[in-house]
């Protein structure tokens, strides 16, 4: 057993003195989340996806800053209209079960995704057909221009599984994932842990860690306590509230990194009084973002300065919306709401979101916007948001705490599902029913080409256009925070909340 030495150590009361009581390079990763699937094509959560990325790889991948980089493909080319993408595959790579990685393997995986049966099938929705040009070249033919297609290929949902494993296990491959990655899947005890071990023949070089065990620890205080007591080597997320405790512990090192998770307040923009742009601007002036970050978020965030976070492709800085109560009051007066009005504040009940919304409630009171706060679990929260229709007879003005992480790392998926007219719920997540023809036009312009300079220009204009329209109350972009024991190297969080363990190692 992994922990056979533990009882002895325990008896001697040496737990604190010997943090690494697992083997020398057996790493324990404690996380808030639980593994839900290990079938990349059928995975919808970041955490499971990140474990899959240690086992499997895609044609393209993301680097530390979420830029798209070649992985199993050497490179790609595309045509002017962004409807054909051709990938050249790397040669000489084998899956963990010794199957060769080649165009046939890609074909099997893409065909599987294109059956439409899986949670990530949507990534291949733009694809009309996949052509196998030769053993190491494949070409995707799209239905219509889709400039962000390479991001879909780099997405963890498009990882390549061993075709042999797919044939052998069918959909049970979720419990037997086989890929080309640095780690080989060992076991998954649902609700408890996932264990992966070193791939001795990894194509990118030697893997240093012998094994990594992923263990869910939902209560944040317990998670940090495990790290401090040497029961875990790495925890994510590191609860920002407890930063002081962690910093005072000489065994522990904090890792923080900007994320692509944007936080904002959704307001129903189709109804009075929130339909008045002056009112929405007033709300933005009345929000003390710095205080919210410091108090509600434990300091682990930076003020939002565009509708998408800095780490998303094609971000263009608009500048932080200033906190200016006098200006806010003036705008409210101008709009005819000098005495304020009533709203409902909605939020998921995770403690930092709840605190942030509570602070929003406190701050908006200053300009007369008051109302009850309703916190609920995530499922009820979405149910509540989706319950508001664009044509409600008696609309309830609401201000809801929202957050978005565009898992493709592309500007399109950070804007279109939230602010385009086509994204009205239930179709997508434009819960505030924001609608502007100019915005819709620019959204389409961004997708019409795969040429980054053309796309970049469209998204620059789009961000500039939308910022002063204040569709949201702009809040902040999360800073990811993880903590680890000092002698653990090579594990770090990625901007989308996933993580990389490829070069993980416990040094002595």
């Amino acid at each position, binding site marked *: *057993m*992994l*922990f056979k030495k*533990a*009882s002895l150590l*325990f008896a001697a*009361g040496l*737990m*604190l003195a010997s943090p690494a009581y697992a083997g020398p390079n057996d790493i324990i990763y*404690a996380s808030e989340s*639980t593994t*839900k*699937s290990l079938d990349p094509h*059928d995975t*919808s*959560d970041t955490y499971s996806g990140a474990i899959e990325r240690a086992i499997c790889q895609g044609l393209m991948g993301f680097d530390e800053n979420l830029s798209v980089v070649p992985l199993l493909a050497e490179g790609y080319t595309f045509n002017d209209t962004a409807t054909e993408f051709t990938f050249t595959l790397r040669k000489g790579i084998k899956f963990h079960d010794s199957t060769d990685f080649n165009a046939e393997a890609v074909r099997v995986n893409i065909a599987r995704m294109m059956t*439409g*049966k899986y*949670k*990530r*099938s*949507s990534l291949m*929705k733009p694809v009309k057909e996949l052509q196998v040009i030769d053993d190491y070249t494949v070409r995707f033919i799209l239905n219509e221009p889709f400039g962000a297609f390479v991001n879909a290929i780099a997405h963890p949902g498009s990882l390549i599984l061993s075709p042999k494993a797919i044939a052998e296990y069918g*959909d049970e491959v*979720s*419990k037997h994932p086989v890929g080309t990655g640095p780690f080989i899947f060992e076991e998954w*005890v*649902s*609700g*408890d842990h996932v264990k992966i071990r070193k791939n001795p023949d990894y194509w990118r070089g030697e893997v240093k860690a012998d094994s990594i065990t992923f*263990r*869910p*620890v*939902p*209560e944040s*205080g*317990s*998670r940090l*306590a*495990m790290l*401090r*007591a040497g*029961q875990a080597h790495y925890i994510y997320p590191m609860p920002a509230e407890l930063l002081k405790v962690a910093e005072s512990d000489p065994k522990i090192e904090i890792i923080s990194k900007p994320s692509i998770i944007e936080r904002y307040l959704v307001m129903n923009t189709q109804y009075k009084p929130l339909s008045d742009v002056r009112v929405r601007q007033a709300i933005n002036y009345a929000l003390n973002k710095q205080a919210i970050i410091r108090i509600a978020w434990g300091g682990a965030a930076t003020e939002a300065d565009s509708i998408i976070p800095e780490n998303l492709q094609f971000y263009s800085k608009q500048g932080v919306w200033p906190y200016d109560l006098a200006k806010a009051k003036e705008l409210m007066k101008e709009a005819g709401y000098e005495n304020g009005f009533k709203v409902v504040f909605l939020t998921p009940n995770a403690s930092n979101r709840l605190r942030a919304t509570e602070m929003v409630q406190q701050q908006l009171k200053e300009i007369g916007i008051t109302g009850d706060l309703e916190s609920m*679990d*995530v*499922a*009820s929260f*979405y*149910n*509540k948001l*989706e319950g508001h229709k664009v044509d409600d007879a008696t609309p309830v003005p609401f201000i809801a705490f929202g957050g*978005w*992480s565009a*898992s493709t790392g592309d500007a399109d*998926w950070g804007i279109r*599902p939230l602010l385009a007219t086509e994204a009205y719920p*239930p*179709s*997508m*997540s434009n819960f505030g029913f924001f609608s502007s023809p100019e915005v819709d036009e620019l959204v389409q312009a961004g997708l019409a080409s795969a040429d980054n300079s053309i796309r970049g220009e469209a998204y620059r204009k789009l961000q500039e256009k939308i910022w002063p329209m204040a569709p949201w109350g702009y809040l902040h972009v999360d800073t990811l925070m993880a903590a680890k024991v000092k002698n653990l190297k090579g594990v770090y969080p990625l901007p989308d909340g996933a993580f990389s363990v490829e070069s993980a190692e416990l040094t002595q």
Partner: protein
Amino acid sequence: MIRFFLKRCLSMIPVLFVVSILAFAFVHLLPGDPARMMAGQDADPATIELLRQQLGLDRPLPVQYLRYIGNLCTGDLGMSLRTQIPVFDEIALRYMPTMLLAMTGMAWSVIFGVFFGAVAAIYSGKWQDYLAMFVSVSGISVPQFWLGLLLIQLFAVYLGWFPVAGYTGKASELVLPSITLGATVAAIMARFTLSAFLDVLSEEYISTARAKGVAERLVMWKHAFRNALIPVVTMIGLQFGFLLGGSVVVETVFAWPGLGRYMIEAVAVRDYPVLQALLLLYSFHFVFINLLVDMVYALINPEIRYE
């Protein structure tokens, strides 16, 4: 005896049947859409619709109910919506950790509860009585999650005597969560032991034994203690269900891979089949354990008549 047992078993069926209806009603009354939760936060509508179909959620409720009951009769609990693993397997994985926790918790509560209760009875009205009752009642007066977090801080982080959280098969990992869980029930046990003891001590055969010159310690342990245990056995049954329920909070704090935490996770993502199965399982245990208690009760005291 066997007839009594069988009869009691049969009487469980209508209760469980009603529970099955309630369980179904409960999960479908929960606001929120499992398909959306499974599809992930940034899912597109097609994926959500696809899942709804795959999960059978697009069918009318009566159809869903009949399918659920039909499957239930054949022992099929369905698949977890979240992991696509059969619910039976998922529960089997988590069953032992929870039972282990509940039983250890129960053991603590019996040990401490009976001890404090007995002390309070023997030293009735003296300081030992007050102290024993104060300590045991304290256990019921602290919210479990708070007690758990405090114990972790003290014994795991500062003193380093026990592991913080998680369960990998070591006995040391069981100590803090089971004490947290058992604390509440210990108070109830102590009360019952106390009043049972006082009852027994006032019985004639105790005075007789004393009068015959039997040593005081012998009177206590041989005569009083044994008879006082009967109501304690009853309480074990009644409180076991409570312990299983309490594990919801304790398992969350201690990252315990058991049914309680599973329940919370399943509620969070609206995993209907899992919730239904867990509710049934919890009630089945409660009913079944009380049946067992009745049997044990009958064994300890043969004078009890079977109705």
